[in-house]
């Protein structure tokens, strides 16, 4: 389970201390996911703004992104003296593993009902006959 131990520096907004760590992490993740580019903790803090929870201190943001990075949810790269962070989409991670598992075993294939699988050459030809791009000129009996 999630670690909810104290990790706020003393001087930050009192509201921040009352919030569960998970909510802060979720907010930071949301900001990073919304951003198309890697963000430094400073940029994250800017984008978080004051909001309903009050402003977070720089060190709190650093703590949160470090924790998220340790959990494998963020990737980071050097940016000046610090790091810039991008989200490693957990869904993407899990789904990617799932997809590999899908290809690995019949049981996974059966558990996950896939929308479609690939077509054989014969099926592809059949499908093309069934779905004709007739632009409305051909007979239309559907």
């Amino acid at each position: 389970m999630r670690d909810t131990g104290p990790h706020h520096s003393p001087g930050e907004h009192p509201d921040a201390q009352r919030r569960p760590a998970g909510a802060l992490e979720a907010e930071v993740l949301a900001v990073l996911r919304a951003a198309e580019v890697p963000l430094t903790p400073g940029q994250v803090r800017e984008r978080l703004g004051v909001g309903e929870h009050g402003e977070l201190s720089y060190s709190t943001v650093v703590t949160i992104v470090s924790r998220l990075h340790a959990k494998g949810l963020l990737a980071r790269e050097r940016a000046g003296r610090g790091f810039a962070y991008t989200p490693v989409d957990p869904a993407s991670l899990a789904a990617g593993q799932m997809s590999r598992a899908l290809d690995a075993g019949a049981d996974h294939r059966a558990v996950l009902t896939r929308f479609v699988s690939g077509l054989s050459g014969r099926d592809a030809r059949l499908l093309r006959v069934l779905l004709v791009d007739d632009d409305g000129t051909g007979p239309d009996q559907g």
Partner: protein
Amino acid sequence: MRLLVYLPLLIPVLAAVAARPLAARLEPRQATWLLTAATVILAACSTVALALLAASAAARVPLLATLGDYSRSVIYRADPTSVITGAAAAIVLTAAAVAVAVAVRHRARALAESYRRAARLRDDGTIVVVRGGAVEAYALPGWPGRIVVSGRLLEALDEPGRSALLAHERAHLAGRHHLFTTMAHLAAAANPVLLPLARTVDYTVERWADEHAARVTGDRRLVAVTIGRVAMLATPGRRPAATLGIVRARSRRISVAWAGPVPRRVAALLGPPPRSQALLMAAAVLIVVLTGASALEAARDLHALLELARAAH
């Protein structure tokens, strides 16, 4: 043991042949229920039949006769099951037990993994968009279940196509379709002759979800075209421009009876909505019930025989 005991071993062969034509004619929801129930019941009946054959052969073992205090001569006179048949039945039964145990283990593991992963996806909604280049969409059973769709696939579809795809996947989750396929495949592990039935259930749940999507979107053709488009996209090396340009579909009288699932699903959607086939359902149910009855009757036969042998001792 009368010939009745062999009926539960024969009917699965018939059922295996009939599964696909049945699935093509029945309303998908009914077909799913029927075929799943049939697979489970027929697997149970054939297992009972094997057990009875093995038991009636075992009844000839002198030691058991002494222990059970019954007359072997009565058994010999009344029961036409040979020792070889009984031994063969015992071997098949053992193999089936092992196969079921292995299948249960694999399925349970796959389902547990699915639930675990679904729970770990912390996105708020049901729909999880995967980055990367794969053309992929599937329902991930869990609590709550998730719909995993690749971003590339979503981009390739227009808005109506997306709603058709999502309606299809939602139907899988809401209908708990993985339970049907799991039950059917576990039953087929006990009796591999029933494997075509289990595979047909895989198909009928897709049809079920397709018909649901057709009702939700109000456009059968849209669902058909979406399936076709996604299938073409998902097939590496088969992405001719014409495929992506599909705008209209027409139903042609071409046979898809022996085609793969995708052309059959598309053809079914291009045709009229499926109607409930009460007569066909009743006939199929009757055959399954008769098989069950014959297994029970055979069990009663053996029981009566043993009673008789005990009385004669």
